[in-house]
């Protein structure tokens, strides 16, 4: 079939929903709770399904004011929050149930749609729990609009961060972004010039004790470039790239070879594992780093992330043609 009509090809599987076009093929897994495959021009961009992230590795200031101890629930939530619900909409129509057998037995391999949307609901592993939804809306060109909604609960402690973590199968050769220069945080961005910047590789800022690093505030877009895959049938070392763009508001991101948990566990740089993946986290909220002292002074109140209120952020993933 042809794709000139900007219609998406929709494959109603029993464990996953496939959505494809001329140069992309996405798999939304009901079993794995999210976007399991993001294949563009034959290259896979995901190692595991994206997960909401609630943790950024403890900084020295966090340690000094016991923030991480007070907010420790979010570390568990970061690691162990299950996907409890999946909803599918086709052309704006919410399906009453997941379209798996026997419901999907009526389909062929020729279904199309102008827009496919899936919402994955995560239940935070906190006491009490609060839902977080991730909605992927795919339209005809393959663009995915990703929306994250954090419901919040006043009984929960402040968050270190709220974001969506995408782990890519291999390390990036670098990334380019439009936003603020250097490593910035909400309370440390006045000195950063706005512009478009290229970063070679996946630098980890070598703080004496590894901690959160590499944050880039107020970003319009980031393009990650890789040159290798894990696909045994694809040994080419040609660069390929994927762009994440601002939807309604700029976002913050970090692009590192490590998860927050890996950074959290190392006491020296050399204890970090060998870099083998790319961890791109797009943040809707980031806690400040503070700086009055490192033994008790809190981050200024306006740079906290209270869990009492809803947080929403969104961005677009766009396969380039």
């Amino acid at each position, binding site marked *: 079939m042809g794709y000139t009509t900007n219609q998406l090809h929709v494959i109603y599987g029993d464990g996953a929903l496939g959505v494809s076009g001329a140069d992309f093929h996405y798999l939304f897994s009901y079993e794995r709770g999210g976007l399991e495959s993001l294949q563009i021009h034959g290259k896979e961009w995901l190692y595991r399904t994206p997960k909401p992230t609630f943790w950024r590795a403890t900084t020295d200031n966090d340690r000094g004011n016991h923030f991480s101890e007070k907010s420790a629930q979010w570390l568990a939530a970061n690691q162990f929050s299950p996907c409890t619900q999946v909803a599918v909409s086709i052309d704006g129509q919410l399906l009453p149930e997941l379209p798996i057998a026997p419901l999907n037995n009526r389909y062929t391999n020729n279904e199309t749609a102008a827009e496919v949307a899936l919402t994955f609901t995560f239940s935070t592993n906190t006491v009490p729990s609060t839902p977080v939804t991730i909605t992927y809306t795919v339209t005809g060109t393959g663009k995915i609009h990703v929306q994250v909604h954090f419901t919040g609960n006043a009984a929960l402690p402040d968050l270190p961060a709220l974001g969506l973590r995408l782990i890519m199968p291999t390390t990036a050769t670098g990334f380019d972004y439009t936003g603020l220069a250097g490593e910035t945080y909400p309370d440390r961005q006045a000195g950063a010039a706005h512009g478009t910047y290229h970063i070679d590789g996946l630098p980890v800022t070598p*703080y004496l004790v590894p901690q959160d690093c590499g944050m880039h505030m107020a970003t319009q877009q980031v393009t990650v470039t890789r040159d290798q895959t894990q696909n045994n049938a694809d040994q080419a070392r040609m660069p390929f790239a994927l762009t994440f763009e601002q939807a309604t508001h700029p976002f913050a991101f970090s692009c590192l070879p490590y998860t927050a948990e890996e950074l959290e566990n190392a006491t020296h740089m050399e204890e970090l594992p060998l870099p083998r993946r790319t961890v791109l986290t797009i943040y809707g909220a980031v806690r400040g780093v503070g700086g009055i002292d490192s033994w008790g002074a809190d981050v200024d109140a306006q740079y906290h992330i209270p869990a009492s209120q809803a947080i929403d952020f969104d961005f677009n993933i766009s396969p380039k043609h």
Partner: protein
Amino acid sequence: MQADLEWLDDPEVFRVNQLPAHSDHAFYQTNAEITQTSSYVQSLNGIWQFSFAKTPAERPLNFYDPNFDASAFESITVPGHIELAGYGQIQYINTLYPWEGQVFRRPPYTLNADQLVSGLFSDAIDNTVGSYLKTFELTPAFQGKRTIIQFQGVEEALYVWLNGHFVGYAEDSFTPSEFDLTPFITTGKNTLAVRVYKRSTAAFIEDQDMFRFSGIFRDVNLLALPAVHIADLDLRPTVTTDWHTGNLAVTTKLSCAATTTTATLQLTVTDPAGTVIAQQTQPRANTVTFDPITVTDVQLWGPATPNLYQVTLTVLTANQHIMEVVPYQFGFRKVELRADKVIYVNNQRLIINGVNRHEWNAKTGRVLSIADMQADIQTMLANHINADRTCHYPDQLPWYTLCDQAGIYLMAENNLESHGSWQKLGAIEPSYNVPGDNPHWLAAVVDRARTNYELFKNHPAVIFWSLGNESYAGSDIAAMNRFYKTHDTSRLVHYEGVVHTPDLKDQISDVESRMYESPKNIAAYLDNDPQKPFIDCEYMHDMGNSLGGMQAYNDLIDRYPMYQGGFIWDFIDQALLVHDPISGHDVLRYGGDFDDRHSDYEFSGDGLLFADRTPKPAMQEVNYYYGLHN
């Protein structure tokens, strides 16, 4: 005189046969040498013979005897730290004394004990000893001249012998110690013996937050003194309130081999362009005071315009032969604390865009090269950093000159920090505080104040004397303040610790200085009839990923004239580059990584630069905010 090991236990013995402290001027045999190395200086840096002992009891006893068999000695590089040469254990600790939980120890003459404690350090299990031997022959330029040995820095207690004769003893690790070798020196081979103890009573007042090292860690030089020598130079440049006229008073103290030696002393003053603007000649005397010199259209010294004038003093024989040439660059600038309780420099409100700077190199510890210092100056200039607090000891001599030349203000700190004696688990507990009001500890700290003053009194960069850091406050520190007030009207005195003893505030410190104070509390101070201008002597603790929230401090500058800025803690991470056998890489290690306990672990990783001198990402924020008021 014989050396006495028990000097280690006595806070009242801290300099034996040491020459008086004096200005840090260089001196040369000819004018041509000025841009090179003085032929009156013979470096003893290099490989020395060395023996390490874990305790004083195990030291090689008569090693200073010229007949001593030193074949069992090993070798060590001077300058260097004994610990980084692989002998003593590396330890990083902040507040508590380094013997915490290892040895119970209280300072002598405290806790109502009006006596010394025998063996406190002289018979200790934790007092490592380095025995150094160096043989040398004098270079030709030294023949027949008085010969001085200058140790620019030795931690922490130093005994010196030459050719078997005891020469002298010194404490105060971060200032030069000079001894006269003339009575003992020979024209042939000389054997210098130096014993360095890691601990003495000085340890109680040298409890700086840093890696704890010992050894000869700064340059060692022999100095040849001509028959008539400029022992001290005192330059007093002042500026009239029309800001166009400078006045210079020059006084020198001469030392002579014989009172009968005739000589004249010629003074030349040149402006920043090198044009001669004054010349005078005076006959030799113990103290030579030149006629006051007026400088019209004076070019002031400051961060934006580090204009330096130069005096050149030439000592001439009766036959007009040059015996010695002393060049010294100085600047005209006026520091005032006015009736509005605001500090002005050259008629402009002072705004300190400062950093605290430990001397540090990840490979060599506190052994710094000139290139390291020059790199630090460039980093400061590139980021609008206009001031350095030398924390918490006097730095290597060249640093002060580099700051003069670059236009970096200095808060010149004394070698004093005693927080282990009064700060316990974050609480104030001064029951055995030193120096406090203790008469037995008074002379040692006033001597440190005097040495700091005499060394650096001619540097325009120094606008504050700082009495030291985190040493609580009492009458001894008030006496240090009095010393500066009676000797120097051209600078202000800073001390933070008086914040704990408000009754002494009219006797100590010209400024209200606090560390890590919140912007809210600073505003509260400034809104409530403040008596002194406010300075953050330490703020924005840049440990790890930090330095968020500078805006709030910047806003204070715009709101309150009496808020005069501060010094970020601190300039460079203190960590050591170590080979990691597991990864095969050279990696940075911190406290506790050497099995050292008690330790404060990574707490010294609080610089704007990583330990390898690359800037942390936060530097762009410093550059921005400091650039707003530069």
